[in-house]
């Protein structure tokens, strides 16, 4: 059972006269309730992959499947609808709307729905995030960790199947980062898959598996490795590094993590 999947996805960008291939054939699948991190050096295509998974961008080749349904080539309107129904986003910079209260920010994705249960759900979600006493605070009255928890609540308001997080701990100190990761782990208990793109090795203490992207290839598909990609499930298997007991090898991680500053655009 797979909730989101890419099949031989290639993404090329046209920059100036040159063609840049950001993803060179990615096969990747995530099951419900799975917590996966995508790691890799700057420019390895992590964010590009996240955008494709989030239906924010279309692949040049290959397909993206949501619940077994091919969503590539859908119109903007259909993609937006699928995104709203299935996918939640959490960003490094939180991206809360400064003029709205915590509760209003959580309700934003359902703003045009005329759904009377939204208010109850937002209060409930913020309560679960430990922000029951911060409902009517504005973002500038909240700490970084609180903001990120509001953002997680926002991403969950439409009860998505997949939560995509772009550097969710990037702007947080280590302790707050842990709290956020624990929230993600709690989210996966409810069968929501969490895919986090990150430089932060701390994340790997909480994930079920780590996927590494290098130069547009995933895991062992990288040019240094031998053997071509097999079927999609094979590729996913080979790309997986089981992380036992939340422990990770710090030295190896820093070696592969070339540029901790963030992804170049």
């Amino acid at each position: 059972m797979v909730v989101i999947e890419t099949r031989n996805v290639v993404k090329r960008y046209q920059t100036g006269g040159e063609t840049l291939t950001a993803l060179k054939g990615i096969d990747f699948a995530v099951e419900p309730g799975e917590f996966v991190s995508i790691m890799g050096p700057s420019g390895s295509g992590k964010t590009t992959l996240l955008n494709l998974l989030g239906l924010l961008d279309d692949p040049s080749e290959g397909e993206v499947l949501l619940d077994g349904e091919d969503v590539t080539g859908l119109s903007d309107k259909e993609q937006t609808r699928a995104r709203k129904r299935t996918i939640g986003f959490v960003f490094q910079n939180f991206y809360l709307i400064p003029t709205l209260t915590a509760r209003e920010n959580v309700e934003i994705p359902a703003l045009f729905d005329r759904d009377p249960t939204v208010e109850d759900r937002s209060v409930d979600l913020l309560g679960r995030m430990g922000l029951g006493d911060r409902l009517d605070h504005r973002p500038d009255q909240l700490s970084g960790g609180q903001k990120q928890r509001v953002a997680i609540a926002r991403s969950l308001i439409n009860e998505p199947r997949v939560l995509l997080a772009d550097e969710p701990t990037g702007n947080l100190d280590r302790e707050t980062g842990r709290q956020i990761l624990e929230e993600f782990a709690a989210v996966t208990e409810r069968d929501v898959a969490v895919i986090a793109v990150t430089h932060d090795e701390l994340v790997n203490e909480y994930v079920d598996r780590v996927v590494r992207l290098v130069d547009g290839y995933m895991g062992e598909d990288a040019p240094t490795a031998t053997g071509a990609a097999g079927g999609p499930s094979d590729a996913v298997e080979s790309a997986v590094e089981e992380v036992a007991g939340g422990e990770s090898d710090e030295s190896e991680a820093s070696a592969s993590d070339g540029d901790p500053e963030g992804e170049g655009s």
Partner: protein
Amino acid sequence: MIGGFDRRLPSLYMARRNLSRTKVRSVLAALGIVIGVIAIASLGMFGLTLRYQISESLGGLGNQVLVTPGEDADGSISVRDLREIETVAGPETTVVPSKARSTVVTYGRGGGGGGGDPAAGSERRIVRGVENPGLIYTAREGEIPDPYRSGALIGPSVAEQYDLGPGDAISINGSSTRVVAVLEAGNGFGFMSPSNDIILPNREFQGRGYSQVLVSTESSTVANETAVALRSELNGRRELVQVQDFSSVADSIGQTFNALNLFLIGIGSISLLVAGVSILNVMLMSTVERREEIGVLRAVGFQKRDVLKIMLSEAVLLGLIGGIVGVAFSLVAGMVINHFIVGDALLAFRPSNFLYIGLAFTFGVGTSLLSGLYPAWKAANERPVEALRS
């Protein structure tokens, strides 16, 4: 807002929040619309008030019909024709027939102290005979006798030129007559301005026919109808009378004022155009600043249409606020204009003024909507991937 969003108009709620985020900028943008609305409304009202004032002071212009002998008449209007004119004109109108004769008039003979007057002299001029001058003229000095049997009435210009007043004597065709009244110049144009006239009682004239008949009606429309009726009733195959009326002149004055009004409103529209550009500028700045935020909205499931609605609501909200404030100020401006031109501030609430105020308001909101279209379209069509690339 307690209890979450205003669920009925979420885009308006978002728009209000966004505008209040940059208060000064929003107020300035709305101020542009305020000025534009005031400009259109008050220039329109100004033109209208000017027109009202002029038509008031023109007074009888257009209310009168002048009947003179036609080509086929024997140089005068017969008594029978006069009866027919009275019948056609109806009881509501004033019909004043008069006669005219060219004769020698000598000033400064006899009377009080006019003896050595340098202006004294004699000349040949037209003297008119009117049966009941009290109906159409008022006296500035002296009194118009009723019934009018003797004495002369003179126009103000004649009185001034020869330094004459009531009690002075003039000689007409050799026989001396006393001046009984100096007439009021009358307001404005029309056929009955008596400033250069010398008027005698009708019975001083021989002959039964009249040289002209003046018909005064209550309005220019009635005057026009009367003129048409007179032409068709009195003139059969032969043209017995010539009928003149001023309704075409009144029409063309009205047209001139319409053109003037359009011109003034055109000038006002330019200021609204400037306001539109300023809203365009504000909205574009706002879409650039909120690029990431709009990207997030798109990522969490807002359709392009939803973003478009929010941005357009902002523009329309600016226009509505500007329009309402502008209308309030325009009413004040209208009262000031009416107070100084017509002397009655409450005339600002004439229905035709509200036409201009409504027009200005509509233009104001319309301009805002138009100016918001491009920024809103731009924001809605930004790809979220680009917007979120930080």
